[in-house]
């Protein structure tokens, strides 16, 4: 082999580190450099006069005819397309190719030049990425399906639990009418409290499942009917169910609040219920509701150990239960649902916790 010279353009063409093919305007091969012949094992005689697509695999042929040839005509060049040539021995060679069309003054095509780089490793890497993406997609789809089924199950379960609960409640009412001894009255009251707690849990479950299934929290807003009686009722119920605990309530609602009254009742019930179960039992739970400066402000504060900062961040996530005694555990949906209700009202629910007090504050625009 002759020793190459730096200024030998013929050598630069023939033995370039990339393959060159020149096509006539008709698409027939005019010239191929030595590098490409070496990579593919074809002879110049075999290639000249044929079409480029005769030397690529079938997928590449279709792609060349439907994408590359038209684009060369329309925009005059095409960079970085992947194509698989086939060697004389029938083996595939992965290539990355750039192409340009030479044109005369009138814009008619004169020739096409292709520069090809062997890219076996690069293509293998890309194919592995594609395979990994495909696998991830499949597993994600199956995960989603499972999650959806689970949530549908929760929704159906929650719904079906309501009926037996209503029977228990009706039965307890009947028993309550005939209760004679102090003990009997206590048992009936306990039954009713439990029914109420369970009904609250079921509401939360259903709301959560609905939210996950795309329904979200729906509101039935009404600014004409007063909100305060709803708050009284919820807090009275909680007082009844927590004998021995003190709830100090302070109301200053002097403007109408455009809200879903039963949803706000649910939010209040969740927040006060939460304060009762997690706050110190020998300090009162302080509730305040007021309207001022175009906003409705509702807060619930309790004493006791502060919530650790790490837990504070995740408090509104579904199923978060923190480090609490097993007997106090709920599903961990109450605060999540409360925050969703706040959001649905264009409001926010925030929490601060210090050794002095833990306070949840809900703020929403009056309308």
């Amino acid at each position, binding site marked *: 082999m002759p020793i190459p010279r730096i200024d030998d353009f013929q050598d630069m063409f023939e033995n370039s580190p990339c393959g060159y093919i020149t096509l006539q305007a008709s698409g027939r091969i005019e010239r191929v450099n030595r590098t490409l012949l070496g990579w593919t094992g074809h002879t110049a005689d075999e290639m000249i006069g044929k079409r480029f697509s005769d030397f690529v695999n079938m997928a590449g042929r279709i792609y060349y005819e*439907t994408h590359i040839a038209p684009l060369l005509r329309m925009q005059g060049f095409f*960079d970085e397309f992947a194509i698989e040539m086939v060697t004389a021995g029938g083996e595939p060679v992965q290539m990355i190719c750039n192409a340009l069309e030479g044109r005369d003054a009138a814009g008619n095509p004169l020739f096409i030049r292709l520069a090809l780089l062997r890219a076996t490793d690069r293509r293998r890497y890309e194919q592995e990425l594609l395979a990994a993406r495909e696998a991830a997609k499949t597993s994600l789809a199956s995960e989603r399906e499972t999650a959806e089924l689970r949530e549908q199950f929760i929704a159906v379960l929650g719904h079906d639990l309501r009926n037996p609960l209503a029977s228990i409640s009706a039965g307890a009412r009947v028993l309550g009418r005939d209760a004679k001894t102090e003990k009997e009255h206590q048992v009936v009251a306990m039954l009713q409290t439990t029914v109420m707690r369970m009904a609250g849990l079921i509401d939360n479950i259903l709301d959560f499942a609905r939210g996950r299934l795309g329904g979200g929290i729906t509101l039935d807003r009404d600014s004409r009917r007063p909100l305060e009686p709803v708050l009284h009722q919820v807090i009275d119920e909680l007082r009844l169910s927590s004998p021995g605990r003190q709830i100090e309530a302070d109301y200053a609602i002097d403007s109408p609040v455009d809200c879903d009254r039963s949803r706000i009742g649910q939010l209040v019930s969740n927040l006060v219920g939460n304060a009762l179960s997690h706050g110190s039992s020998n300090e009162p739970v302080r509730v305040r509701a007021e309207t001022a400066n175009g906003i409705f402000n509702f807060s619930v504060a309790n004493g006791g150990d502060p919530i650790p900062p790490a837990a504070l961040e995740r408090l509104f996530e579904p199923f978060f239960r923190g480090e609490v005694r097993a007997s106090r555990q709920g599903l961990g949906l109450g605060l999540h649902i409360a925050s969703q209700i706040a959001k649905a009202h264009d409001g926010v629910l925030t929490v601060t916790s210090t050794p002095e007090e833990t306070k949840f504050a809900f703020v929403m625009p009056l309308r």
Partner: protein
Amino acid sequence: MGVIERNNVNVSGSGVRAMMFAHGFGCDQNMWRFVEPAFEAEFRTVLFDHVGAGGSDLKAYDRVKYSTLAGYADDVVEIGHEVDLRDAVFVGHSVSCMIGALAAQKAPGMFGKLVMVGPSARYIDDGDYVGGFSEKQIEELLQFLESNHMGWSTQMAPAIMGNPNRPELGTELTNSFCRTDPEIAKAFARVTFKSDNREDLAKIDIPTLVLQCSEDIIASKAVGEFVHRAIPDSEMIILEATGHCPNLSAPDEVIAAMRSFV
């Protein structure tokens, strides 16, 4: 969003009769850029992009609707109603030849003549029928399409959608004539190359011109002859042009052949 925006419909030219151009798998209405202007003096010309291609509304892409060529044919009929086509000439390239044949049956009177450039009624071999491809080769094509995304990236999608003619987007729009969401490209390739319209050809009851290239690996001469023989009132012209896109590589020859027919 209306049909006009959905399919990026462009109407020009003047004339009593109309001529509608439909692009095939791969690129968009720009495939007709060297042919359509020649007919503007005598025809009202209608260009459009199939949903998923070019400047069409990608949000309108419906996996189920476009899983058959009939879904695309429904769009052609909708566009035809929108721009009031009657007795028009339908010019289809590649897979759009069959889309046009289906549309002509769905809306009698809308089209009076069909021009088929590089048609194939079925791409995959079937017994004695030679379509040119095996099932396996088409599967390989579908996989291969993932390797060539033509610079598609999701961030660019909004720029490409609906703005194909904005030159200020300049280099960003490189390859845009043939670029689309890889998932859609794959689905369109699947419906194209797995289609079988052999039974539909005999039902074509309007004069049809088959333009066949000399060397076309996608729609071979045998395939073109099959189409020609199966359509009752058809004629076939073998072009000197080679490849699958004579509308780009040999527009003058295509225009001359069409003129003699319409």
